C-alpha cells in the first residue's frame, strides 16, 4: 500500500496562500528536572500540511498538549497566536472553541454512543429532541460525504470508521486547525488511502493541518513542510516543494533522518549474516480455528534455520501475529485471553516433534516472543525495569517457592540495560515512564536474558523512533550471527526486505508465497499478499 500511496495523484501545486493561521512562538515547557520544550517557533498556514517529525521524546506530544489545551495557558512559556491574535486556553474546551481539534493516536471515542451523540456530545441541551439531533447530524454527515449514518453505534464501526467519526466531530465544530497524531497506526490500507484523500480535501478547503507520524511514506505523500524537533528544540525545517514541484524523496529523506537523529545513518539496515544451516524450527500444517468453523490459519508450513531471519508478511488480518501466538501457546485456554481457539498442527524443534501448549512450555524450549502490543502484553507498565527484565528469566529458572537471588538479578539487569543502551534514570524506575523505543529495548532484553534459540518478533519497531529502530535492526542481525533463528512479523515491507533472508507471505491465513529476501521487491510481496 505504501508503495501505491506515494504514486497516488494529488493536487499538483503547493498551496501558496501565505495566510498564517497558527503561530507558536518561544514555546517552552519545563518538567521537574527537564526541559521538554525549549523556545519552539512554529507557523502553519491555511491550506498547508505540516509534518511534525522527531524521535520519541523529542517534544512532539508535549507541543501538541500545549496546543490542545491539556497544558493550560500559564503552565508553559511562550505565546500562541491564531490569525495574529494571541490566544490563551484554560482547558481543552478553550482550544476546541478556538478551532483546534486533535485526531488522536488512540481513538478516544465512546463505543456505546452513536455517531450523532458523538457529534453533539458537548453541546446537547438539557432536554433533548433526539429526532431533531439525528436529523441535523445526518444532514451534516451527508454534506461530508463519508457515508456515515447518524444512528450507527460507534463501537460497531471498524477502526478506520471510528477515526472518520473523530474527523467528522472536528469538522462539526468547524475546526480550522486539525492535528493528526499517528492516525494511520491502526488502519487498513484502504482506510489509509481514504484518509489521505480526506486530508487532501481538508487542505484544499483552506484548513491548517499538523501531521505527526513515524512513517516516512506518509510524510512524503502528504506534507508541504516538515519541521523536525529534537530534544525539545526545533532543529530543522524542510519544504517539500521547489519551483512548483515536489523535491524527490531520495534527496530529502537522508537529510531529514540525519536531522531527527542528530547523526547520519548510512544504512538503516545492517548487512545480513550468513545462514548457519541447521534447522531449528519446522512447522507443519498449522491450523488455528475459532469455533464453530472459522479458520484463522489454514495449513501453514514453514521452517527457520539457525542464523536465519524469516519475515512474515501479509495484510492486516492475514494471520501474521496469529502464527506466532499459536506457536507460543498464547491462545491456550488457561491464559487470560485464551479460550475458544483451537490449534492443530505439528511443531518440530531441531527435528524433534514437540508439544508446546502454554507459553512456559515454549520458553522452556528456548523460544522467546517480543509481542506486538508492548503495553498490553509485553510489559507490566507500573513496575520497575528490574522486575520486567527478569520476569521470564525467574519464571523459567526455578520453582516459584525459591528465593530470588538478588545479587545475580542486579548483575543481569545491569548487564542488559547497558548492553541494549536503555536510557533510564535507575533500573527501579517504572518502565511505563520510558519512551517507546526504550520500552521496546526492555522487552527485547527480558527475552534475551532467557538465552533463546528461537526469537519471535512481532512488529518490533512499531511506534519507536528511527534511532531505536536502527539499534533493534542491528541487534536482530547480531543475534542471527550468534545462530539464533528469528521470525519477524511486520506490516512494513521495507523492514522485512531489509532484514530477512526469506519472506513468508500470508493471505487470509495461509501461505501464499515464500520469497527470497535478497531478490524480492515490495511489489512481489503486495502481489502475493493481495491476490
Amino acid at each position, binding site marked *: 500500500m505504501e508503495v501505491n500511496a506515494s504514486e497516488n495523484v494529488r493536487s499538483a501545486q503547493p498551496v501558496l496562500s501565505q495566510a498564517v493561521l497558527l503561530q507558536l512562538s518561544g514555546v517552552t515547557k519545563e*518538567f521537574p*528536572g*527537564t526541559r*521538554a520544550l525549549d523556545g519552539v517557533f512554529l507557523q502553519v498556514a491555511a491550506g498547508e500540511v505540516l509534518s511534525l517529525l522527531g524521535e*520519541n*521524546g523529542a517534544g512532539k*506530544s*508535549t507541543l501538541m*498538549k500545549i496546543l490542545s489545551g491539556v497544558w493550560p495557558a500559564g503552565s508553559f512559556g511562550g505565546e500562541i497566536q491564531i490569525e495574529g491574535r494571541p490566544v490563551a486556553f484554560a482547558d481543552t474546551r478553550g482550544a476546541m472553541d478556538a478551532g483546534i481539534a486533535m485526531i488522536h493516536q488512540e481513538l478516544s471515542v465512546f463505543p456505546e454512543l452513536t455517531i450523532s451523540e458523538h457529534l453533539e456530545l458537548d453541546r446537547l441541551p438539557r432536554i433533548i429532541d433526539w429526532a431533531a439531533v439525528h436529523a441535523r447530524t445526518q444532514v451534516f454527515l451527508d454534506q461530508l460525504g463519508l457515508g456515515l449514518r447518524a444512528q450507527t453505534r460507534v463501537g460497531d464501526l471498524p477502526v478506520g470508521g471510528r477515526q472518520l467519526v473523530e474527523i467528522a466531530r472536528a469538522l462539526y465544530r468547524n475546526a480550522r486547525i486539525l492535528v493528526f497524531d499517528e492516525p494511520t497506526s491502526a488502519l487498513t490500507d484502504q482506510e489509509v488511502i481514504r484518509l489521505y484523500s480526506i486530508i487532501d480535501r481538508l487542505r484544499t478547503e483552506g484548513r491548517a493541518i499538523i501531521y505527526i507520524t513515524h512513517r516516512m511514506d506518509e510524510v512524503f505523500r502528504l506534507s508541504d513542510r516538515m519541521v523536525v524537533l529534537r*530534544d525539545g528544540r526545533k532543529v530543522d525545517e524542510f519544504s517539500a516543494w521547489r519551483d512548483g514541484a515536489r523535491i524527490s524523496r531520495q534527496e530529502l529523506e537522508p537529510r531529514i533522518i540525519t536531522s531527527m537523529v542528530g547523526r547520519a545513518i548510512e544504512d538503516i539496515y545492517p548487512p545480513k549474516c550468513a545462514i548457519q544451516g541447521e534447522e531449528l524450527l519446522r512447522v507443519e500444517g498449522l491450523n488455528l480455528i475459532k469455533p464453530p468453523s472459522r479458520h484463522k490459519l489454514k495449513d501453514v508450513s514453514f521452517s527457520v534455520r539457525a542464523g536465519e531471519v524469516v519475515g512474515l508478511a501479509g495484510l492486516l488480518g492475514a494471520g501474521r501475529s496469529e502464527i506466532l501466538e499459536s506457536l507460543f501457546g*498464547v491462545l491456550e485456554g*488457561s491464559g*487470560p*485471553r485464551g*479460550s475458544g481457539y483451537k490449534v492443530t498442527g505439528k511443531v518440530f524443534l531441531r527435528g524433534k516433534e514437540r508439544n508446546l501448549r*502454554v*507459553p*512456559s512450555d*515454549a*520458553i*522452556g524450549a528456548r523460544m522467546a*516472543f517480543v509481542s506486538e502490543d508492548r503495553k*498490553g*502484553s*509485553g*510489559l*507490566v*507498565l*507500573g*513496575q520497575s525495569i528490574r*522486575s520486567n527484565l*527478569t*520476569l*521470564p528469566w*525467574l*519464571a*523459567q529458572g*526455578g520453582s*516459584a*517457592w*525459591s*528465593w*530470588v537471588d538478588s*545479587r545475580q538479578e*542486579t548483575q543481569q*539487569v*545491569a548487564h542488559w*540495560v*547497558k548492553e541494549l543502551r536503555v*536510557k*533510564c*534514570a*535507575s*533500573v527501579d*524506575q517504572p518502565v*511505563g*515512564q*520510558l*519512551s*517507546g523505543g526504550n520500552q521496546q529495548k526492555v522487552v527485547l532484553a527480558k527475552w534475551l536474558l532467557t538465552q533463546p534459540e528461537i526469537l519471535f518478533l512481532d512488529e518490533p519497531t512499531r511506534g519507536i523512533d528511527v534511532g531505536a529502530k536502527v539499534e533493534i535492526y542491528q541487534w536482530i542481525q547480531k543475534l542471527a550471527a550468534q545462530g539464533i533463528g528469528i521470525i519477524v512479523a511486520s506490516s512494513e515491507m521495507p523492514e522485512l526486505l531489509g532484514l530477512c533472508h526469506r519472506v513468508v507471505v500470508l493471505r487470509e491465513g495461509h501461505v501464499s508465497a515464500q520469497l527470497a529476501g535478497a531478490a524480492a521487491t515490495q511489489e512481489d510481496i503486495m502481489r502475493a499478499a493481495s491476490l
Partner: protein
Amino acid sequence: MSSSATTTAMGSPSISSPVSSSAPAIDWRAYRSVIGLGLVMLILAYLTDWDFVSARNLTNLSRQVAINGILAVGMTFVILIGGIDLSVGSVAALSGVVAGLLQVNVGLAQWQGGGEVGGALISMGAAILTGLFCGVFNGFLITRYRIAPFIITLGMMVISRGLALIVSDGAAIAPLGDTFNALGQNYLPIPLTLALVGLAGLGFASSQVLRKERTGENWMNAGFTLAVTGIALWAFQGYRGLPLPVLIFALLGWVGSLVLQRMRLGRFILAIGGNSEAAWLAGVPIRKITFGIYVTLGALAGLCGAILSARLNGALPTAGDLFELDAIAAVVIGGTSLLGGIGTVRGSILGAFFIGALNNGMSLMGVSEFYQKVIKGVIIILAVWFDTRQSRAPRT
C-alpha cells in the same frame, strides 16, 4: 502517560551508566502509614487519659487485631492479583461452627481416646479444612470459568453463612474444651515471650541494616523495628505475655512478607496483578497461582474461625460479620491498590492495627457503637484519600 514518558526520556540522556548506586534521600512517604498509625495512637492515648497505652490494653489490642490481621495478610495477596474475597467472614463463622460441633456434639472436648489435646487439634484442623474447601470452591470457579471474583465470593459469603446457620441450627455452640480455647485465650509465658520477641526484633533490625547497600532508609527501618519491638516487649511483659493469636499472626505476616518480597512467587503475583497478559506471556502459571491464593485465604479464614470461637469459648453462626470489609479496609489503608500489582504485606499489617486501634480506642472512650461505625467509616475514607493524594503528587 505520554507526557511522563517524554519527560523521562529527555531528562536522562546524560546518565550514561543507568545503574547508579548512589543512595537516594530518605523517602518519607514510605513511612507515612507508620507515622499515621503512631499519631492516631497518640491521639487515642491522650483522649483516653493514657489508658489506651497501658500494657494490658496494648496486649488486648494486639489480640483483637490478630484475627483481622491474619485475614488482611491473605487478602493482600488476593487483592494484589486484582481479585477480591468477600466470603472470609462467613467462612470463618462456618469453620468455627464446624470446630464447635466437633468439640461439643461429637464430644472431642472430653475425648477419652485421643485426649483433649488430640481433640482440640482435630477440631482446629477441621476448621482449617472447612475454610480451605471454601477457598477451593472460590478458586476453582474463578480460574476455571472466569467469573468475576466479586460475584463468586459474594455467593460463597451467603452460602457459607447459610451453612453455618443450618449445621448449628441457628444457635451458639458452647462451651468448648479448655485446651481448644487455649488457641484464642492463652499466652506464651513471659520469659519465653521476652526471648522470642526480643530475638525476632533484633534479628529483623540487623537484617535490615546488614544489607549490601547501607542506606539511610535501612537505618530508619531498623530504628522503627527496634521501637516496635521495645513497645511490644514492654506491653507483653507488663501484662501476661504474648497472646497465642498474635504469635500466629506475626508468623503468618512474616511468611507473607518473605513470599512477596524475596521469593519468585512474589514477583509472579505482582506481575499477574500488574498485567496478567504480560505475566502469562512470560511463562507465569497464572491459573495455578490464582487458585492457590484463594485456597490459602480460605484456609486462613478457617483458622480465624477456630481462633475466634476459642476466644469466645463458643461458636456462633453469626460470628465474623463484616470481617471481609475490615480486612479489605486494612489492605487498602496499607497502600495496596485495589487494581492489583502494587502493595505490601507490611502495609496491610499496619492497616489492621490502624483499624484495631480505632475500634479499641473508641470503645475505651465510651463512644456509642452507633457513632463508632460512622467515625470509623469517615476515618477509613480520609486515610485512603490522603494516601492517594500523596502518591499522586509528582516525585522529584
